């Protein structure tokens, strides 16, 4: 199976390039469409919304016109929208093109960092960072489903911004030299990290949107 994947940003591209083969070990990443042969994954980062819609439309066209491509996968953050509304929105974009193709939608509800917060091992039991203690008191990602994380009005952060900030704080607290940015999500590029996120879903039923990811590449 050859998969054409569209993600929002360069950070997601790196994470997916690492995590997808953990779900389907037969898939290997290639860098351009002319390299696609057998069991390959090609990833385009779409540069964010709304430019992303144009990238999806071009992606549909590519999959329909290139016989060797079997499936289109679209990964997108729901951000302030609900999971259902974002999925419906992308469905409509694809269906409006009137093409017949195999496609899957991954709604990262509500962003990639939400899934990343599902890894319990990154949470220090007794954080020293005063902000982190406040965050744990406000919403403890160790026990509550990160998909229900609210914004943090005290620092003017919407929920996506707060999720990224919370994640960064957790990683800095536990692993002093580890940095995380959207552009360079090094902390997530480990097999164990992926396994821990999967375990969170499987043992607690939290971060249910991660099911989209697990189903999209098999």
């Amino acid at each position, binding site marked *: 199976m050859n998969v054409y994947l569209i993600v929002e940003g*360069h950070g997601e*591209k*790196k994470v997916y*390039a690492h995590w997808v083969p953990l779900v389907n070990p037969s898939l*290997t*990443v290639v*860098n*351009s*469409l*002319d390299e696609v042969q057998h069991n390959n994954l090609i*990833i*385009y*980062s*779409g*540069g964010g919304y709304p*430019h992303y819609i*144009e*990238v999806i439309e*071009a*992606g549909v*066209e*590519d999959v329909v*016109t*290139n016989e060797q491509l079997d499936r289109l996968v679209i990964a997108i953050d729901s951000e302030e929208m609900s999971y259902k509304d974002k999925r419906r929105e992308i469905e409509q974009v694809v269906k409006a093109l009137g093409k017949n193709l195999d496609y899957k939608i991954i709604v990262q509800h509500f962003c990639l960092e939400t899934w990343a917060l599902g890894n319990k091992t990154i949470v220090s039991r007794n954080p020293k960072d005063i902000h982190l203690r406040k965050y744990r008191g406000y919403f403890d990602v160790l026990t509550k489903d990160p998909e229900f994380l609210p914004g943090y009005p005290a620092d003017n952060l919407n929920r996506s911004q707060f999720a990224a900030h919370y994640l960064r704080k957790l990683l800095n607290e536990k692993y002093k030299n580890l940095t995380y940015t959207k552009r360079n999500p090094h902390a997530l590029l480990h097999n164990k990290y992926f396994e821990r996120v999967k375990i969170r879903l499987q043992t607690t039923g939290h971060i249910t949107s991660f099911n989209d990811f697990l189903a999209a590449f098999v």
Partner: protein
Amino acid sequence: MISSYYYHGRQFEDWDFEETELNKVNLIVGASGSGKTRYLNTIFNVSSSIVHGQPFRPGYWRLTVKTEEYEYQWEYDGVKNDGENQIKKEFVKRRHLDSQEAFEDLIDRSPDNFVFCGTKLPKLQHDRPGITLLKEEEKIVPLYETFSKVQIRKFHDEGLKDALSLQDASNELINLSKSKDGILALWKQQPALSAKMFLLKEKFPQYYKLAVDTFERVFPSIKGCDVQMLKNPDISIQTPGMVPVFLIKEEKIDRKIPLHELSSGMQKVLLIITDIITLPKGSIYIIDEYENSLGINAIDFLPEFLVAHGTDIQFLVTTHHPYLINSMPMKTWRVFHRNGSKVSIKGGAEFEEKYGKSKQKAFVQLINDPFYSGDELQ
């Protein structure tokens, strides 16, 4: 124009830029830090040193210049040893354009030997390029003139400040009246923008009209332009008294707005337009990151404008902007990738076939290409 270019730094600066063929219009693209600005600076700096005779530039250059009649090849290796400037070697040769005839050797130089057209010359200044020393020689003139017409426009603060300053233009006006060089004389003066518009209006009204018409097309809210003599508001810096000031009239605004009160976007656009239309034939014009702080209306006129003026001028433009990258033909791209001090450069033609298979826009494919992004996923 420069049709091929190679540079390798010497001493502390050992940057190495892959030898590259250049077109009339070149869109220099690459991630931040990939060496684009430095590359353009090497072109401008060596040209400036040749024209002014100084400062001495250590470095190794190898380039091909095409003039109206000839193809020149120039190779130059300058070093600084123990504070002493030395030209280790310099070669200049030429042949008629598009011919297969053998090159004629013009300059063959080493520290102890300087031969021009087969004749050994007496000792000349050891740290000046041969092109500079022999710039009056008929066979060297076309090559020298190419280097004398390299202009760089940067949009960092200081460069913009000088271009937008107010200046008395009376001496320039007198000189233009006496000169037989036409628009070239104005270009050599390099006046600030308001003074330039004044001089265009007085002496070259067809150029003034072209500049104003183009400017008004980019910004449709402008309903007229003018240049008036006004009292210089900043007497602490420029000469006191009356100075020419460029003004616009916008719809729904009663008063005329002077240049220094326009948005930086409008200022930059006018600067680019007047730069380009007054460039002498055979010029090389370098624009470094034009799109900084510009809206799309101030960007989207540029591709067509470059193509319209690209017959007689060579352009090297750095950009990160999706619109420019998508609008310019891929063959104009020069894509930079840096690994340490080594910069690889790929011509756009290499990408045409690779990107031709996908319907994704050129910019999307470029930013996803590991050569551009530096991200290796495997």
